[in-house]
């Protein structure tokens, strides 16, 4: 399973070297055997996976096109709902929640022949940068088991890195796909805001939430994104912009592309990470990219802005977990109000409570202008920084995280320090632009480092071209 790519599976299926059902059984067995090492999966979906694989095999037998993701084992972050398949969001509140419908991304993934083998662990309601906020225990980084895989999509990143899935879906609100991808040494993509329907993605911060793919190569990530992207009438924020053929554009030629290096992203970077990112930039220059120093002057305000907007929206979105419709309910007896309060106190973990509290505070009477409105204004300035930069360059190249994967427990008691480490990823979400992490080597300790590539709205193609050309040149 570790060697497989989307195209190798397709070839194997069409040449009848194996059937989708055989591959799926092998994937399930391998994933279940490996899982105790990392705790990447919360639920396996054998019945659904075998049914999906059989459908692929029937299509192949009938001479029909089995779809761009035919027979590919996919892991799905447990914040994306799957009909009839438990979806916990990493929360005790939803420990027994069985969704009555499929997310649009799930429907499209399966329509393309993808085989969902399981649901992956994550920080509770996607809130965290280390996967230590899951009610079902942390995920361990398969590269170094004493370290975090990053978060919040830590389980999806670990599954792809471990080779138990070929590709995976995660969600990114402030870096939750790119940062774990960089920590685990895989590709992680946050597409343009609105590129992928969020229907069925459990809402955290609606103006920032994205669904995005993980893969072991840029080509596979691009194939998965193309399969799930595009307008969906179930999500009013999904964009009508046509989805180009990303993979067809990957020819390895980036000569003449202008890449910007934001100076604010290269100060405060650990030396071990900085060295790898600079080396990657040198490779891109050798490939003919023209590098320019640029400035994104409002970067230092991004964390403050992000933690106002994200928590304000979260405080509203998480109000629905009240012990009435789909969560567990506190056993304590009392009035309706007491039931709500006790259910939420018992059910939410510390990080969710902190964010609900901060979000409620910044929206509360007398504080709205000072915090939420101010945050929205600074967000406009951050987005404008990017718009100005993209007048000079075609892509921006930067680190993903100031540090590589840290040890489990190392930062868990200092929420502000944990938040500050999101500095290079929250900006892309705030601006709504496409951004991704592609592996760019390891530190002297063997820990993976990610190179971040950001481009203009809806220009995932240029982002993928840069990442793919770098991959070809560096391997």
């Amino acid at each position: 399973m570790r060697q497989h790519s989307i195209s190798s599976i397709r070839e194997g299926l069409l040449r009848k070297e194996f059937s989708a059902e055989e591959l799926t059984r092998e994937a399930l067995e391998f994933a279940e055997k490996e899982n105790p090492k990392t705790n990447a999966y919360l639920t396996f979906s054998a019945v659904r996976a075998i049914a999906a694989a059989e459908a692929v095999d029937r299509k192949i037998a009938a001479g029909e096109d089995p779809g761009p993701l035919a027979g590919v084992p996919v892991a799905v972050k447990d914040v994306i709902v799957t009909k009839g398949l438990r979806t916990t969001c990493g929360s005790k509140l939803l420990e027994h929640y069985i969704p009555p419908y499929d997310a649009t991304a799930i429907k499209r993934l399966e329509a393309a022949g993808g085989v969902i083998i399981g649901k992956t662990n994550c920080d509770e309601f996607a809130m965290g940068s280390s996967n230590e906020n899951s009610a079902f225990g942390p995920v361990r980084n398969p590269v170094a088991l004493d370290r975090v895989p990053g978060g919040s999509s830590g389980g999806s990143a670990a599954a792809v890195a471990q080779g138990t899935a070929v590709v995976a879906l995660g969600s990114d609100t402030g870096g939750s796909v790119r940062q774990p991808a960089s920590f685990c040494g895989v590709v992680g993509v946050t597409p343009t805001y609105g590129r992928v329907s969020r229907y069925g993605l459990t809402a955290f911060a609606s103006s920032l939430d994205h669904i995005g793919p993980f893969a072991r190569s840029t080509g596979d990530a691009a194939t998965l994104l193309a399969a799930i992207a595009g307008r969906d009438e179930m999500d009013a924020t999904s964009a009508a912009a046509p989805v180009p053929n990303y993979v067809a554009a990957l020819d390895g030629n980036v000569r003449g592309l202008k890449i910007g290096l934001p100076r604010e992203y290269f100060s405060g970077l650990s030396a071990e990470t900085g060295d790898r990112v600079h080396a990657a930039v040198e490779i891109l220059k050798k490939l003919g990219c023209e590098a320019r120093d640029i400035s994104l002057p409002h970067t230092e305000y991004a964390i403050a802005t992000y933690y106002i907007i994200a928590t304000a929206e979260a405080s509203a979105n998480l109000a629905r977990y009240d012990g009435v419709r789909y969560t567990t309910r506190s056993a304590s007896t009392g009035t309706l109000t007491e039931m709500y309060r006790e259910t939420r106190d018992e059910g939410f973990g510390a990080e969710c409570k902190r964010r609900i509290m901060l979000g409620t505070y910044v929206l509360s009477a007398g504080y709205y202008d000072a915090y939420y409105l101010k945050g929205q204004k600074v967000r406009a300035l951050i987005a404008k920084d990017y718009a100005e930069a993209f007048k000079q360059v075609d892509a921006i190249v930067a680190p993903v995280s100031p540090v590589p994967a840290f040890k489990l427990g190392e930062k868990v008691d200092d929420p502000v320090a944990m938040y500050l480490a999101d500095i290079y990823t929250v900006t892309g979400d705030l601006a709504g632009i496409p951004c991704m992490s592609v592996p760019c080597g390891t530190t002297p300790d063997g820990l993976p480092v990610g190179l971040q590539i950001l481009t203009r709205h809806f220009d995932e193609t240029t982002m993928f071209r840069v990442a793919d050309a770098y991959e070809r040149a560096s391997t």
Partner: protein
Amino acid sequence: MKITDQEVRRVAELASLALRDDEVEKMAEDLSNILTHIEKLNELDTSGVEPMAQVLFDAEETATLREDRERPSLTNEEALANAPVSGSGYFKVPRVIER
């Protein structure tokens, strides 16, 4: 920015969270630290800046409206399937009105 225990309790009530006493103290400390960092935004003069209320929306305001037609939705049974307590086709909650 220092948040008092009393403010934490007021916000917890707004957020429908029954924080325990030991949680209140830690929350006051954490929120104070985060809000102190957030004060950084006051360095910026944002008068004249339009707040970014939409991420991407160049189209007409009605561009995403769909045709208003009847379509299947969840059945009563499906809607209640995950409820911790239900009965007679309804969600059940603690009594609100005394008879």
